């Protein structure tokens, strides 16, 4: 039999196997890092038509979340305010600011300001703001410290696994209902105190977060 392959090809199978292992490891770690909502959503920070600064209005002036997102305790949907809400102050303050031009135009015409949506649950997910807010889930749990954001950015992955983390262990994330919009609040007793109180709230408020498919995918 004549030689079909040169001598160096003897090492080739081993090299190919090693290469495949490295490739597999790279693909797995690449997918784990880059292809989950942790990477694809967190940090999303679109520029808005009006550079509304939450850190100034909420953090420094002390507006409550519900001053603008007024229906969050009653409605499944947390509303974005109409220009009228802005104009309740800005008819007096900074009336000729160029940055506020879209707000005044919206107020005059009735067409909404074209805000760019930051947090968006897929169509097949049913999420109700009111039930969460009324059972002590703070805004900060899902939206992060908006009171410190100059431009609103996506803070949490909002993946299904992330939702289930809380649905499986709600005691770690609920607080007295009157503190829901206090984004800086942490339990004074630390993690231990949070869980003790959390378990008490779960018991008293009969919190039973759905974990079945149809709880959220209706």
């Amino acid at each position: 039999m004549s030689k079909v392959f040169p001598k160096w090809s003897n090492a080739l199978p081993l090299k190919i196997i090693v290469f495949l292992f490295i490739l597999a490891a790279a693909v797995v770690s690449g997918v784990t890092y880059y292809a989950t909502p942790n990477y694809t959503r967190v940090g999303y920070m679109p520029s808005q038509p009006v550079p509304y600064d939450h850190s100034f209005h909420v953090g420094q002036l002390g507006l409550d979340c519900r001053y603008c997102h007024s229906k969050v305790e009653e409605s499944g949907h947390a509303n974005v305010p109409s220009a009228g809400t802005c104009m309740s102050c800005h008819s007096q303050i900074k009336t000729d600011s160029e940055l506020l031009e879209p707000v005044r135009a919206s107020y005059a015409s009735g067409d909404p300001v074209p805000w760019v949506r930051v947090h968006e649950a897929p169509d097949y997910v049913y999420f109700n703001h009111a039930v969460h807010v009324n059972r002590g889930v703070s805004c900060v749990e899902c939206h992060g410290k908006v009171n410190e954001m100059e431009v609103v950015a996506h803070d949490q992955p909002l993946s299904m696994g992330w939702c289930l983390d809380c649905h499986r262990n709600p005691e770690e994330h609920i607080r007295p209902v009157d503190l829901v919009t206090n984004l800086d609040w942490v339990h004074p007793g630390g993690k231990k105190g949070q869980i003790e109180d959390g378990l008490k709230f779960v018991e008293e408020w009969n919190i039973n977060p759905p974990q079945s498919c149809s709880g959220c995918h209706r």
Partner: protein
Amino acid sequence: MGSSNPILDEVKPAILKEVDPVDIPRPALVENNRSFSWITDKICGIVEEKTPTWWWVCFIIACAGASFTVMGLVYLVATGTGVWGLANPANWGWAIVNFVFWIGIGHAGTLISAILCLLRQKWRTSINRAAEAMTIFAVVCAGIFPVFHVGRVWMAWFLFPIPNANAIWPNFRSALLWDVFAVSTYGTVSVLFWYVGLIPDLASVRDRAKNKIRQVLYGIFAMGWRGSNRQWSNYEMCYLLLAGLSTPLVLSVHTIVSFDFAISLLPGWHTTIFPPYFVAGAIFSGFGMVLTLMLPLRAIYRLEDLITQYHIDCMTKIILATGTMVGYAYGMEFFIAAYGANDFEIFAFVNRAFGNYAWAYWIMISCNVISPQFFWFKKIRENTALVWIITIFVNIGMWFERFVIAVTTLTRDFVPSSWGYYSPTIIDIFTYLGTFGLFSVLFLLFLRFLPLMAMAEIKVVTPQADPHNH
């Protein structure tokens, strides 16, 4: 037997002084005293000859057939699973029937390669390669149906327990998940077994190759095989281990497929006889398919010396045995239903035989129970045309068995107001018929490019390999 005691000399010992071995000749597994080189030339010649015209004709027809499956699946993905005839109450229809049908076909391959190897049934050598190829291609065809039944095929990886951002896992208590493991293990082990068996023969083709491209391609897949003693002894050990590993698979795969039905609570499905009865049925249909494929090949390539009447006898007898077992199971289902005195169970079986789908039930009985009984007769076993026709009936019958099981129970569920009649849509029919095209495409490619019999193993069972009659 000299002894000093005269009395003892009178006693005739109960042991014969010498033993004359009775001369019962075993049928030769390779007839006409063929030499080793004849075998090599014959098998390699099939891959080396110019592509015959009939091959092209069959290949083009098979491709056209396979395109039906492709079109059916494209339409399904573009439109949704509603294009199949599934609707309440029959949410399982042709898809599961076809899946079980194809998986069952594959079983003969594993049985021949694993169990017959361990039992040292030498007649397996001239059919095992093609049967294993058949197994793999059948698994490919089977896999299509559950994968596309999920609707959004690109999410089919959800079938496997892979950690994901949704923090959900498949239901480990579901037989459908066990199926995923059973079938993927089965596919993997079958491919390994097939490939390991191919290595020495690929090396033969490589060594006979006339041009560089063939030499390199077959050389790559022969993985440097030289046929040294050391390689052979490692190879034999590896082959034996694989045979041991896949032996449980022969039983486990179809057992788990039967669990899809048996662990539910529906009358007609919820029976303990399902696993053995499904395994017997699978081997039955698998051997049917082996004969359906091998008999034409034997005629086309003039392989009568390698696939002898003895081989056909062995396979038809297995079909007869497993067919009778299946028939016994059909009878036993009725007995258990009557003996168990459960109204719903009795209804389910009476409905099977005399209800809406009685036509399907009696097709099943005549093909599966009656047609193999002809194999009791030597005259029929020796008539290849008749054997071939009966094996076709066997496979028709086994398809109808799965259809009867899946559909009769579902269309007559617990609430009479929801009773219905299931019919497939044209898309169902085209997708299924197309899988025969796909199977044929794969099998024809196998015939063209790989040695269809295990040359090295056949040489071992020739009379020449055993010159001292051990």
